[in-house]
Protein backbone atom coordinates (compact mmCIF):
# COMPACT_ATOMS: atom_id res chain seq x y z
CA UNK A 1 0.00 0.00 0.00
CA UNK A 2 2.79 2.39 0.74
CA UNK A 3 5.37 1.24 -1.73
CA UNK A 4 6.08 3.88 -4.29
CA UNK A 5 6.24 2.93 -7.94
CA UNK A 6 8.90 0.36 -7.31
CA UNK A 7 10.38 -1.13 -10.40
CA UNK A 8 12.15 -4.22 -9.25
CA UNK A 9 14.72 -5.44 -11.69
CA UNK A 10 14.22 -2.40 -13.85
CA UNK A 11 17.90 -2.00 -14.54
CA UNK A 12 17.21 -3.10 -18.06
CA UNK A 13 16.68 0.21 -19.81
CA UNK A 14 20.13 1.38 -19.07
CA UNK A 15 22.05 -1.73 -19.65
CA UNK A 16 21.72 -5.05 -17.99
CA UNK A 17 23.95 -7.06 -20.20
CA UNK A 18 26.22 -4.11 -20.78
CA UNK A 19 29.30 -5.92 -19.64
CA UNK A 20 31.67 -3.06 -19.18
CA UNK A 21 29.59 -0.76 -16.97
CA UNK A 22 30.29 -1.11 -13.25
CA UNK A 23 28.53 -0.36 -10.00
CA UNK A 24 30.23 1.56 -7.21
CA UNK A 25 30.78 -1.67 -5.25
CA UNK A 26 32.60 -3.25 -8.19
CA UNK A 27 34.89 -0.25 -8.59
CA UNK A 28 35.60 0.12 -4.88
CA UNK A 29 36.33 -3.57 -4.32
CA UNK A 30 38.48 -3.75 -7.47
CA UNK A 31 40.54 -0.91 -6.03
CA UNK A 32 40.74 -2.56 -2.60
CA UNK A 33 41.74 -5.87 -4.20
CA UNK A 34 44.34 -4.24 -6.45
CA UNK A 35 42.51 -5.48 -9.53
CA UNK A 36 41.54 -3.89 -12.81
CA UNK A 37 37.93 -4.96 -12.34
CA UNK A 38 35.87 -7.46 -10.37
CA UNK A 39 32.54 -9.10 -11.14
CA UNK A 40 29.41 -9.35 -9.02
CA UNK A 41 29.37 -12.60 -7.05
CA UNK A 42 33.13 -13.03 -7.22
CA UNK A 43 35.04 -13.52 -3.96
CA UNK A 44 38.06 -11.24 -3.70
CA UNK A 45 40.78 -10.64 -1.14
CA UNK A 46 40.71 -6.96 -0.24
CA UNK A 47 43.14 -4.75 1.63
CA UNK A 48 40.93 -2.18 3.37
CA UNK A 49 42.12 1.39 3.93
CA UNK A 50 40.67 1.60 7.44
CA UNK A 51 39.91 -1.10 10.02
CA UNK A 52 37.79 0.10 12.91
CA UNK A 53 37.00 -1.37 16.28
CA UNK A 54 35.76 0.06 19.57
CA UNK A 55 35.03 -1.31 23.03
CA UNK A 56 35.39 -4.75 21.45
CA UNK A 57 39.11 -4.16 20.82
CA UNK A 58 40.29 -6.05 23.93
CA UNK A 59 38.31 -9.12 22.88
CA UNK A 60 39.76 -8.83 19.36
CA UNK A 61 43.24 -8.60 20.84
CA UNK A 62 42.67 -11.92 22.61
CA UNK A 63 41.89 -13.55 19.27
CA UNK A 64 44.82 -11.81 17.55
CA UNK A 65 47.24 -13.11 20.20
CA UNK A 66 46.57 -16.62 18.91
CA UNK A 67 48.49 -15.66 15.77
CA UNK A 68 51.68 -15.29 17.82
CA UNK A 69 52.66 -11.90 16.41
CA UNK A 70 54.22 -9.21 18.55
CA UNK A 71 53.20 -6.40 16.18
CA UNK A 72 50.03 -5.84 14.18
CA UNK A 73 50.84 -5.41 10.48
CA UNK A 74 48.52 -2.46 9.83
CA UNK A 75 48.88 -0.05 12.80
CA UNK A 76 48.44 3.01 10.58
CA UNK A 77 45.14 1.71 9.16
CA UNK A 78 43.60 0.92 12.53
CA UNK A 79 41.17 3.29 14.22
CA UNK A 80 39.99 2.55 17.74
CA UNK A 81 37.29 4.52 19.53
CA UNK A 82 35.97 3.99 23.03
CA UNK A 83 32.28 4.68 22.54
CA UNK A 84 29.91 1.80 23.35
CA UNK A 85 29.98 1.95 27.15
CA UNK A 86 31.56 5.29 28.12
CA UNK A 87 32.40 6.41 30.72
CA UNK A 88 32.77 2.87 32.04
CA UNK A 89 29.58 1.93 33.92
CA UNK A 90 31.11 -0.98 35.88
CA UNK A 91 34.55 -2.15 36.99
CA UNK A 92 34.47 -4.85 34.32
CA UNK A 93 33.83 -2.27 31.62
CA UNK A 94 36.65 -0.16 33.05
CA UNK A 95 39.02 -3.18 32.94
CA UNK A 96 38.04 -3.66 29.32
CA UNK A 97 38.92 -0.04 28.51
CA UNK A 98 42.19 -0.32 30.43
CA UNK A 99 43.20 -3.36 28.36
CA UNK A 100 42.43 -1.47 25.17
CA UNK A 101 44.56 1.51 26.23
CA UNK A 102 47.47 -0.81 27.01
CA UNK A 103 47.14 -2.45 23.60
CA UNK A 104 46.99 0.94 21.84
CA UNK A 105 50.15 2.02 23.65
CA UNK A 106 52.00 -1.25 22.97
CA UNK A 107 51.16 -1.22 19.28
CA UNK A 108 51.61 2.51 18.73
CA UNK A 109 48.09 3.01 17.32
CA UNK A 110 47.87 6.69 16.45
CA UNK A 111 44.17 6.84 15.64
CA UNK A 112 42.87 6.16 19.11
CA UNK A 113 39.94 8.15 20.48
CA UNK A 114 39.30 8.32 24.19
CA UNK A 115 36.10 8.22 26.23
CA UNK A 116 34.04 11.29 25.36
CA UNK A 117 35.32 11.87 21.83
CA UNK A 118 32.28 10.18 20.32
CA UNK A 119 30.91 7.29 18.27
CA UNK A 120 33.37 5.58 15.91
CA UNK A 121 31.47 6.33 12.67
CA UNK A 122 30.97 9.99 13.56
CA UNK A 123 34.53 10.48 14.81
CA UNK A 124 36.16 8.83 11.79
CA UNK A 125 33.98 11.03 9.57
CA UNK A 126 34.93 14.21 11.45
CA UNK A 127 38.59 13.22 11.30
CA UNK A 128 38.38 12.41 7.57
CA UNK A 129 40.11 9.10 8.26
CA UNK A 130 38.16 7.63 5.38
CA UNK A 131 38.10 9.19 1.93
CA UNK A 132 35.73 8.61 -1.01
CA UNK A 133 36.27 5.37 -2.87
CA UNK A 134 38.11 3.78 0.04
CA UNK A 135 37.14 0.58 1.83
CA UNK A 136 36.41 0.62 5.56
CA UNK A 137 35.86 -2.63 7.40
CA UNK A 138 34.68 -2.40 10.96
CA UNK A 139 33.74 -4.64 13.86
CA UNK A 140 30.49 -2.73 14.00
CA UNK A 141 27.32 -3.39 12.07
CA UNK A 142 26.71 0.28 11.25
CA UNK A 143 29.87 0.56 9.14
CA UNK A 144 27.71 1.09 5.98
CA UNK A 145 27.62 4.61 7.48
CA UNK A 146 30.61 5.53 5.29
CA UNK A 147 28.40 5.43 2.24
CA UNK A 148 27.64 9.08 3.08
CA UNK A 149 31.01 10.08 1.63
CA UNK A 150 31.02 7.62 -1.25
CA UNK A 151 33.18 5.02 0.51
CA UNK A 152 32.62 1.26 0.81
CA UNK A 153 31.96 0.52 4.48
CA UNK A 154 30.99 -2.95 5.68
CA UNK A 155 30.58 -4.56 9.09
CA UNK A 156 32.58 -7.66 9.95
CA UNK A 157 33.16 -9.86 13.00
CA UNK A 158 35.83 -9.76 15.69
CA UNK A 159 37.83 -12.73 14.33
CA UNK A 160 37.92 -11.00 10.97
CA UNK A 161 39.31 -7.81 12.46
CA UNK A 162 41.94 -9.91 14.25
CA UNK A 163 42.79 -11.55 10.91
CA UNK A 164 43.12 -8.10 9.33
CA UNK A 165 45.48 -6.92 12.06
CA UNK A 166 47.60 -10.01 11.34
CA UNK A 167 47.50 -10.04 7.53
CA UNK A 168 45.98 -6.78 6.28
CA UNK A 169 43.68 -8.83 4.07
CA UNK A 170 40.16 -10.30 4.11
CA UNK A 171 37.82 -11.97 1.62
CA UNK A 172 34.63 -10.23 0.51
CA UNK A 173 32.03 -11.24 -2.01
CA UNK A 174 31.34 -8.51 -4.57
CA UNK A 175 27.70 -7.66 -3.86
CA UNK A 176 24.77 -7.01 -6.14
CA UNK A 177 23.61 -3.41 -6.02
CA UNK A 178 20.21 -1.87 -5.41
CA UNK A 179 19.52 1.63 -6.63
CA UNK A 180 17.21 3.92 -4.67
CA UNK A 181 16.18 7.24 -6.17
CA UNK A 182 14.60 10.17 -4.37
CA UNK A 183 13.06 12.55 -6.87
CA UNK A 184 13.16 15.85 -4.98
CA UNK A 185 13.89 17.61 -1.71
CA UNK A 186 12.13 16.19 1.36
CA UNK A 187 9.24 18.36 2.54
CA UNK A 188 9.55 20.20 5.87
CA UNK A 189 9.03 17.86 8.80
CA UNK A 190 10.12 14.80 6.83
CA UNK A 191 13.70 13.64 7.34
CA UNK A 192 16.25 11.18 5.98
CA UNK A 193 15.32 8.93 8.91
CA UNK A 194 11.70 8.85 7.72
CA UNK A 195 12.87 7.87 4.25
CA UNK A 196 15.10 5.13 5.67
CA UNK A 197 12.30 3.72 7.85
CA UNK A 198 9.96 3.83 4.89
CA UNK A 199 12.40 1.92 2.66
CA UNK A 200 12.92 -0.72 5.37
CA UNK A 201 9.17 -0.92 6.00
CA UNK A 202 8.43 -1.32 2.30
CA UNK A 203 10.96 -4.04 1.52
CA UNK A 204 11.57 -5.63 4.91
CA UNK A 205 14.53 -5.82 7.27
CA UNK A 206 16.12 -8.21 4.77
CA UNK A 207 15.13 -6.20 1.68
CA UNK A 208 18.72 -5.19 1.06
CA UNK A 209 20.35 -8.40 2.26
CA UNK A 210 23.98 -8.69 1.07
CA UNK A 211 23.51 -5.75 -1.30
CA UNK A 212 25.29 -2.47 -1.85
CA UNK A 213 22.60 0.23 -1.78
CA UNK A 214 23.30 3.20 -4.06
CA UNK A 215 21.27 6.36 -3.51
CA UNK A 216 20.69 8.93 -6.19
CA UNK A 217 18.37 11.67 -7.32
CA UNK A 218 17.98 15.35 -6.60
CA UNK A 219 16.36 14.59 -3.23
CA UNK A 220 19.60 13.01 -2.04
CA UNK A 221 21.69 15.81 -3.57
CA UNK A 222 19.58 18.32 -1.61
CA UNK A 223 20.30 16.54 1.68
CA UNK A 224 22.74 17.93 4.22
CA UNK A 225 25.79 15.86 5.17
CA UNK A 226 24.17 15.01 8.53
CA UNK A 227 21.07 13.69 6.75
CA UNK A 228 23.15 11.66 4.31
CA UNK A 229 24.93 10.06 7.25
CA UNK A 230 21.60 9.07 8.82
CA UNK A 231 20.41 7.55 5.55
CA UNK A 232 23.59 5.61 4.77
CA UNK A 233 23.92 4.45 8.39
CA UNK A 234 20.36 3.06 8.54
CA UNK A 235 20.99 0.73 5.62
CA UNK A 236 22.47 -1.67 8.19
CA UNK A 237 18.85 -2.25 9.24
CA UNK A 238 17.96 -3.05 5.62
CA UNK A 239 20.43 -5.94 5.67
CA UNK A 240 22.77 -4.09 3.32
CA UNK A 241 26.48 -4.80 3.12
CA UNK A 242 27.32 -1.22 2.26
CA UNK A 243 25.72 1.93 0.96
CA UNK A 244 26.73 4.72 -1.35
CA UNK A 245 25.93 8.36 -2.00
CA UNK A 246 27.86 10.14 -4.77
CA UNK A 247 30.35 12.63 -3.34
CA UNK A 248 29.62 16.20 -4.41
CA UNK A 249 30.64 19.73 -3.46
CA UNK A 250 29.15 19.36 0.03
CA UNK A 251 31.02 16.12 0.64
CA UNK A 252 34.29 17.56 -0.58
CA UNK A 253 34.00 20.74 1.51
CA UNK A 254 33.26 18.68 4.63
CA UNK A 255 36.25 16.38 4.06
CA UNK A 256 38.64 19.17 3.07
CA UNK A 257 37.80 21.09 6.23
CA UNK A 258 38.26 17.92 8.27
CA UNK A 259 41.66 17.20 6.69
CA UNK A 260 42.72 20.77 7.35
CA UNK A 261 41.69 20.56 11.02
CA UNK A 262 43.58 17.32 11.47
CA UNK A 263 46.70 18.63 9.74
CA UNK A 264 46.65 21.72 11.95
CA UNK A 265 46.31 19.60 15.08
CA UNK A 266 49.03 17.19 14.03
CA UNK A 267 51.19 20.19 12.95
CA UNK A 268 51.53 18.79 9.46
CA UNK A 269 51.94 20.88 6.35
CA UNK A 270 49.30 20.91 3.66
CA UNK A 271 47.50 23.54 1.66
CA UNK A 272 43.80 23.69 0.89
CA UNK A 273 44.69 22.67 -2.68
CA UNK A 274 46.49 19.54 -1.45
CA UNK A 275 43.45 18.46 0.56
CA UNK A 276 41.08 19.20 -2.24
CA UNK A 277 43.20 17.19 -4.68
CA UNK A 278 43.43 14.24 -2.29
CA UNK A 279 39.66 14.09 -1.90
CA UNK A 280 38.92 14.59 -5.59
CA UNK A 281 41.42 11.97 -6.77
CA UNK A 282 39.97 9.39 -4.42
CA UNK A 283 36.34 9.60 -5.66
CA UNK A 284 34.60 6.75 -7.44
CA UNK A 285 31.29 6.95 -9.28
CA UNK A 286 29.13 4.13 -10.66
CA UNK A 287 28.76 3.95 -14.43
CA UNK A 288 25.47 5.20 -15.90
CA UNK A 289 24.77 1.83 -17.48
CA UNK A 290 25.68 -0.32 -14.47
CA UNK A 291 23.33 -3.24 -13.74
CA UNK A 292 21.18 -3.19 -10.60
CA UNK A 293 19.33 -6.06 -8.95
CA UNK A 294 16.48 -3.63 -8.31
CA UNK A 295 15.64 0.04 -8.63
CA UNK A 296 13.24 1.69 -6.19
CA UNK A 297 11.92 5.17 -6.83
CA UNK A 298 10.58 7.35 -4.05
CA UNK A 299 8.69 10.56 -4.47
CA UNK A 300 9.59 13.03 -1.70
CA UNK A 301 6.16 14.64 -1.81
CA UNK A 302 4.52 11.36 -0.82
CA UNK A 303 6.71 10.71 2.22
CA UNK A 304 5.58 11.49 5.75
CA UNK A 305 6.95 11.23 9.29
CA UNK A 306 7.31 7.51 9.94
CA UNK A 307 7.68 5.49 13.14
CA UNK A 308 9.08 2.01 13.59
CA UNK A 309 7.00 0.11 16.15
CA UNK A 310 8.10 -2.68 18.52
CA UNK A 311 9.89 -5.06 18.02
CA UNK A 312 11.36 -4.96 14.51
CA UNK A 313 12.65 -2.02 12.48
CA UNK A 314 10.51 -2.96 9.48
CA UNK A 315 7.30 -2.76 11.54
CA UNK A 316 6.65 0.81 10.42
CA UNK A 317 3.56 2.98 10.65
CA UNK A 318 2.79 6.55 9.68
CA UNK A 319 3.29 8.86 12.66
CA UNK A 320 -0.43 9.63 12.66
CA UNK A 321 -1.24 5.96 13.34
CA UNK A 322 0.74 5.78 16.59
CA UNK A 323 0.41 9.39 17.79
CA UNK A 324 -0.94 9.47 21.33
CA UNK A 325 1.03 6.45 22.61
CA UNK A 326 2.25 7.40 26.09
CA UNK A 327 6.06 7.41 26.49
CA UNK A 328 8.12 7.44 29.68
CA UNK A 329 11.48 7.96 27.98
CA UNK A 330 12.64 9.87 24.91
CA UNK A 331 16.17 9.42 23.60
CA UNK A 332 18.04 11.49 21.00
CA UNK A 333 21.46 10.21 20.00
CA UNK A 334 23.43 7.34 18.34
CA UNK A 335 25.42 7.00 15.13
CA UNK A 336 22.13 7.31 13.26
CA UNK A 337 20.71 10.52 14.72
CA UNK A 338 22.94 12.20 17.28
CA UNK A 339 24.37 14.92 15.07
CA UNK A 340 24.20 18.72 15.10
CA UNK A 341 21.23 18.86 12.73
CA UNK A 342 19.35 16.41 14.95
CA UNK A 343 20.07 18.35 18.12
CA UNK A 344 19.16 21.60 16.34
CA UNK A 345 15.76 20.19 15.40
CA UNK A 346 15.17 19.06 18.96
CA UNK A 347 16.27 22.44 20.37
CA UNK A 348 13.94 24.28 18.03
CA UNK A 349 10.99 22.28 19.33
CA UNK A 350 12.02 22.42 22.98
CA UNK A 351 12.94 26.12 23.01
CA UNK A 352 10.67 27.78 25.55
CA UNK A 353 8.80 24.54 26.33
CA UNK A 354 9.00 21.93 29.08
CA UNK A 355 9.21 18.18 28.88
CA UNK A 356 5.95 16.62 30.05
CA UNK A 357 5.68 15.37 33.63
CA UNK A 358 6.17 11.61 33.69
CA UNK A 359 8.52 11.69 30.70
CA UNK A 360 12.29 12.12 30.60
CA UNK A 361 14.45 13.17 27.65
CA UNK A 362 18.02 11.94 27.25
CA UNK A 363 20.25 13.63 24.69
CA UNK A 364 23.60 12.04 23.87
CA UNK A 365 25.57 13.89 21.17
CA UNK A 366 27.34 11.64 18.67
CA UNK A 367 30.69 13.35 19.29
CA UNK A 368 32.50 15.99 21.30
CA UNK A 369 32.55 18.18 18.19
CA UNK A 370 28.76 17.93 17.90
CA UNK A 371 28.47 18.78 21.61
CA UNK A 372 30.76 21.82 21.29
CA UNK A 373 28.91 23.20 18.29
CA UNK A 374 25.57 22.54 19.97
CA UNK A 375 26.78 24.52 22.98
CA UNK A 376 28.07 27.38 20.86
CA UNK A 377 24.71 27.67 19.15
CA UNK A 378 22.74 27.55 22.39
CA UNK A 379 21.03 24.25 21.64
CA UNK A 380 22.27 22.53 24.77
CA UNK A 381 21.07 25.44 26.94
CA UNK A 382 17.61 25.19 25.36
CA UNK A 383 17.48 21.44 25.91
CA UNK A 384 18.63 21.61 29.52
CA UNK A 385 16.20 24.48 30.23
CA UNK A 386 13.41 22.27 28.91
CA UNK A 387 14.45 19.53 31.34
CA UNK A 388 16.63 17.27 29.16
CA UNK A 389 19.53 15.23 30.56
CA UNK A 390 22.72 15.47 28.49
CA UNK A 391 25.05 12.45 28.31
CA UNK A 392 28.70 11.92 27.43
CA UNK A 393 29.19 11.63 23.65
CA UNK A 394 29.05 7.96 22.66
CA UNK A 395 26.46 5.29 21.95
CA UNK A 396 24.50 6.03 25.14
CA UNK A 397 21.67 3.65 26.06
CA UNK A 398 21.27 2.33 22.47
CA UNK A 399 22.20 -1.27 23.27
CA UNK A 400 21.21 -1.46 26.91
CA UNK A 401 24.60 -1.06 28.53
CA UNK A 402 23.91 2.03 30.64
CA UNK A 403 22.92 5.71 30.64
CA UNK A 404 19.18 5.36 30.41
CA UNK A 405 17.98 1.78 30.32
CA UNK A 406 14.19 1.61 30.64
CA UNK A 407 12.28 -0.01 33.50
CA UNK A 408 10.05 -2.98 32.77
CA UNK A 409 6.77 -1.94 31.25
CA UNK A 410 8.14 1.41 30.03
CA UNK A 411 7.91 2.82 26.53
CA UNK A 412 10.83 4.64 24.89
CA UNK A 413 10.72 6.73 21.74
CA UNK A 414 14.19 6.87 20.29
CA UNK A 415 16.17 8.35 17.42
CA UNK A 416 18.34 5.19 17.40
CA UNK A 417 18.39 2.43 14.81
CA UNK A 418 17.12 -0.74 16.55
CA UNK A 419 13.99 -1.54 18.51
CA UNK A 420 14.55 -5.26 19.00
CA UNK A 421 12.99 -6.86 22.05
CA UNK A 422 15.47 -6.49 24.88
CA UNK A 423 17.67 -4.07 22.94
CA UNK A 424 17.82 -1.46 25.68
CA UNK A 425 18.36 -3.93 28.51
CA UNK A 426 14.99 -5.54 29.26
CA UNK A 427 12.62 -7.59 27.13
CA UNK A 428 9.72 -6.05 29.07
CA UNK A 429 10.05 -2.63 27.45
CA UNK A 430 8.89 -1.20 24.13
CA UNK A 431 10.97 0.92 21.77
CA UNK A 432 9.60 3.11 18.98
CA UNK A 433 12.05 4.57 16.46
CA UNK A 434 11.56 7.96 14.84
CA UNK A 435 13.30 11.13 13.71
CA UNK A 436 14.83 13.41 16.38
CA UNK A 437 12.08 15.98 15.77
CA UNK A 438 9.37 13.42 16.54
CA UNK A 439 11.28 12.28 19.64
CA UNK A 440 11.55 15.89 20.88
CA UNK A 441 7.88 16.60 20.20
CA UNK A 442 6.92 13.39 22.00
CA UNK A 443 8.98 14.43 25.04
CA UNK A 444 7.01 17.68 25.22
CA UNK A 445 3.66 15.95 24.78
CA UNK A 446 4.43 12.91 26.96
CA UNK A 447 3.06 10.78 24.16
CA UNK A 448 4.10 10.16 20.58
CA UNK A 449 3.40 13.44 18.81
CA UNK A 450 3.84 15.24 15.52
CA UNK A 451 6.36 18.10 15.79
CA UNK A 452 4.16 20.22 13.55
CA UNK A 453 1.30 19.97 16.08
CA UNK A 454 3.55 20.76 19.05
CA UNK A 455 5.01 23.84 17.37
CA UNK A 456 1.54 25.12 16.47
CA UNK A 457 0.26 24.78 20.03
CA UNK A 458 2.59 27.48 21.35
Amino acid at each position, binding site marked *: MNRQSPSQGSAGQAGRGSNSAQTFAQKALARAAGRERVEVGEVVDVRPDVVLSHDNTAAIREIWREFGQSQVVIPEKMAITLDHAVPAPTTRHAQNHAEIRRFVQEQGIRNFFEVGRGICHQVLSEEALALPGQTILGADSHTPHFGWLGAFGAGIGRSEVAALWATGELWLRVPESIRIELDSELPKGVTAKDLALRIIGDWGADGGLYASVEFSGSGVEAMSIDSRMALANMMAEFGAKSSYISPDGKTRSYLEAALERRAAREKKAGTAEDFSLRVAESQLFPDEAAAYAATYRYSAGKLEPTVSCPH*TVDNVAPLSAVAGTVVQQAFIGTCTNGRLEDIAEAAEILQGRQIAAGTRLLVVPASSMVLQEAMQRGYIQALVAAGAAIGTPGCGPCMGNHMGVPATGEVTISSANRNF*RGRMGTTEAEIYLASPAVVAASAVAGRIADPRDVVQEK
Partner: protein
Amino acid sequence: MIRGRAWKYGDNVNTDVLFPGKYTYTARGRDEIASHALEDLDPAFAANVCDGDVIVGGRNFGCGSSREQAATCLVYNGVGAVIAQSFARIFYRNAINNGLLAIVCPEAAQAIQQQEHVSIDLERRTIESASGRFEFPPLSVTVREILEAGGLVAQVKRRLASARTAS
Protein backbone atom coordinates in the same frame (compact mmCIF):
# COMPACT_ATOMS: atom_id res chain seq x y z
CA MET B 1 27.30 -36.24 10.35
CA ILE B 2 25.50 -33.85 12.68
CA ARG B 3 22.70 -35.30 14.80
CA GLY B 4 20.50 -33.57 17.32
CA ARG B 5 17.17 -32.04 18.17
CA ALA B 6 15.74 -28.94 16.51
CA TRP B 7 15.28 -25.67 18.34
CA LYS B 8 12.95 -23.74 16.08
CA TYR B 9 12.44 -19.98 16.01
CA GLY B 10 10.88 -17.48 13.61
CA ASP B 11 11.97 -14.73 11.22
CA ASN B 12 14.44 -11.96 12.03
CA VAL B 13 16.01 -13.65 15.06
CA ASN B 14 18.33 -10.80 15.99
CA THR B 15 21.68 -10.70 17.73
CA ASP B 16 20.19 -8.97 20.78
CA VAL B 17 18.02 -11.98 21.58
CA LEU B 18 20.82 -14.40 20.64
CA PHE B 19 23.29 -12.67 22.95
CA PRO B 20 22.18 -9.50 24.80
CA GLY B 21 24.19 -6.33 24.18
CA LYS B 22 24.62 -5.66 27.87
CA TYR B 23 27.11 -8.55 28.14
CA THR B 24 29.00 -7.92 24.94
CA TYR B 25 31.98 -5.99 26.39
CA THR B 26 32.35 -7.88 29.63
CA ALA B 27 31.49 -11.57 29.11
CA ARG B 28 34.71 -13.50 28.55
CA GLY B 29 35.40 -17.18 28.41
CA ARG B 30 33.37 -20.01 26.94
CA ASP B 31 31.21 -20.78 29.96
CA GLU B 32 30.10 -17.24 30.61
CA ILE B 33 29.34 -16.61 26.93
CA ALA B 34 27.50 -19.95 26.64
CA SER B 35 25.35 -19.20 29.68
CA HIS B 36 23.71 -16.14 28.02
CA ALA B 37 22.82 -17.86 24.72
CA LEU B 38 19.30 -17.00 23.57
CA GLU B 39 18.61 -15.54 27.00
CA ASP B 40 15.98 -13.11 25.72
CA LEU B 41 14.43 -15.50 23.18
CA ASP B 42 14.25 -18.86 24.92
CA PRO B 43 15.42 -18.83 28.55
CA ALA B 44 15.23 -22.67 28.62
CA PHE B 45 17.73 -23.05 25.77
CA ALA B 46 21.14 -22.73 27.43
CA ALA B 47 20.28 -25.17 30.22
CA ASN B 48 18.77 -27.82 27.95
CA VAL B 49 20.63 -27.74 24.64
CA CYS B 50 22.72 -30.85 23.85
CA ASP B 51 25.76 -31.41 21.64
CA GLY B 52 24.76 -31.68 18.02
CA ASP B 53 21.44 -29.88 18.40
CA VAL B 54 20.37 -27.74 15.48
CA ILE B 55 18.90 -24.25 15.45
CA VAL B 56 16.19 -23.70 12.85
CA GLY B 57 15.35 -20.12 11.94
CA GLY B 58 13.27 -18.25 9.39
CA ARG B 59 14.34 -15.30 7.26
CA ASN B 60 17.24 -12.98 8.07
CA PHE B 61 18.57 -15.09 10.94
CA GLY B 62 21.13 -13.21 13.05
CA CYS B 63 20.24 -9.70 11.92
CA GLY B 64 21.49 -6.71 13.88
CA SER B 65 24.82 -6.29 15.60
CA SER B 66 28.20 -7.61 14.43
CA ARG B 67 28.82 -9.18 17.85
CA GLU B 68 30.52 -12.48 17.30
CA GLN B 69 29.16 -13.99 20.52
CA ALA B 70 25.80 -14.34 18.72
CA ALA B 71 27.53 -17.22 16.91
CA THR B 72 30.10 -18.33 19.49
CA CYS B 73 27.44 -18.67 22.22
CA LEU B 74 25.89 -21.38 20.03
CA VAL B 75 29.24 -23.05 19.33
CA TYR B 76 30.11 -23.07 23.04
CA ASN B 77 26.78 -24.80 23.72
CA GLY B 78 27.63 -27.55 21.24
CA VAL B 79 25.16 -26.51 18.55
CA GLY B 80 25.93 -28.50 15.41
CA ALA B 81 24.42 -26.24 12.76
CA VAL B 82 21.97 -23.46 12.06
CA ILE B 83 19.45 -23.98 9.27
CA ALA B 84 17.55 -20.91 8.08
CA GLN B 85 15.63 -19.50 5.15
CA SER B 86 18.28 -16.76 4.94
CA PHE B 87 21.02 -15.30 7.13
CA ALA B 88 22.08 -11.76 7.90
CA ARG B 89 25.51 -11.38 6.35
CA ILE B 90 27.68 -10.65 9.41
CA PHE B 91 26.11 -13.47 11.42
CA TYR B 92 26.73 -15.86 8.54
CA ARG B 93 30.41 -14.89 8.41
CA ASN B 94 30.75 -15.11 12.20
CA ALA B 95 29.20 -18.57 12.21
CA ILE B 96 31.43 -19.96 9.46
CA ASN B 97 34.52 -18.27 10.92
CA ASN B 98 33.86 -20.14 14.16
CA GLY B 99 33.32 -23.46 12.41
CA LEU B 100 29.55 -23.35 12.85
CA LEU B 101 27.77 -24.72 9.80
CA ALA B 102 25.14 -22.23 8.55
CA ILE B 103 22.86 -23.82 5.98
CA VAL B 104 20.50 -21.89 3.75
CA CYS B 105 17.61 -24.28 3.06
CA PRO B 106 14.18 -22.62 3.05
CA GLU B 107 12.29 -25.92 2.63
CA ALA B 108 13.92 -27.58 5.63
CA ALA B 109 13.71 -24.39 7.71
CA GLN B 110 9.97 -24.28 7.14
CA ALA B 111 9.21 -27.99 7.50
CA ILE B 112 11.27 -29.07 10.50
CA GLN B 113 9.28 -29.02 13.73
CA GLN B 114 10.31 -28.01 17.22
CA GLN B 115 12.39 -30.70 19.02
CA GLU B 116 12.32 -33.02 16.00
CA HIS B 117 15.42 -35.19 15.50
CA VAL B 118 17.51 -33.83 12.65
CA SER B 119 20.55 -35.31 10.92
CA ILE B 120 22.74 -33.39 8.52
CA ASP B 121 25.15 -34.98 6.06
CA LEU B 122 27.53 -32.31 4.84
CA GLU B 123 29.12 -34.58 2.21
CA ARG B 124 25.80 -35.47 0.61
CA ARG B 125 24.34 -32.04 1.40
CA THR B 126 21.21 -33.51 2.91
CA ILE B 127 19.07 -32.78 5.94
CA GLU B 128 16.81 -35.52 7.27
CA SER B 129 14.07 -35.37 9.86
CA ALA B 130 10.56 -36.76 10.42
CA SER B 131 9.35 -33.84 8.28
CA GLY B 132 11.27 -35.01 5.24
CA ARG B 133 14.57 -35.19 3.42
CA PHE B 134 15.97 -31.97 2.05
CA GLU B 135 18.95 -31.11 -0.11
CA PHE B 136 20.89 -27.91 0.30
CA PRO B 137 23.08 -26.13 -2.25
CA PRO B 138 26.86 -26.53 -2.18
CA LEU B 139 28.79 -24.16 0.08
CA SER B 140 31.07 -21.71 -1.69
CA VAL B 141 34.71 -22.70 -2.03
CA THR B 142 35.75 -19.89 0.34
CA VAL B 143 33.31 -21.03 3.02
CA ARG B 144 34.26 -24.68 2.61
CA GLU B 145 37.94 -23.89 3.01
CA ILE B 146 37.32 -21.99 6.26
CA LEU B 147 35.18 -24.82 7.65
CA GLU B 148 37.73 -27.44 6.61
CA ALA B 149 40.50 -25.45 8.29
CA GLY B 150 38.46 -25.44 11.51
CA GLY B 151 37.51 -21.78 11.37
CA LEU B 152 39.06 -18.49 10.32
CA VAL B 153 41.61 -18.24 13.12
CA ALA B 154 42.96 -21.71 12.37
CA GLN B 155 43.05 -20.90 8.67
CA VAL B 156 44.96 -17.65 9.19
CA LYS B 157 47.38 -19.38 11.58
CA ARG B 158 48.12 -21.96 8.93
CA ARG B 159 48.63 -19.29 6.26
CA LEU B 160 50.96 -17.30 8.48
CA ALA B 161 52.94 -20.45 9.30
CA SER B 162 53.35 -21.41 5.65
CA ALA B 163 54.35 -17.83 4.78
CA ARG B 164 57.03 -18.00 7.49
CA THR B 165 58.29 -21.33 6.16
CA ALA B 166 58.36 -19.97 2.62
CA SER B 167 60.45 -16.98 3.62
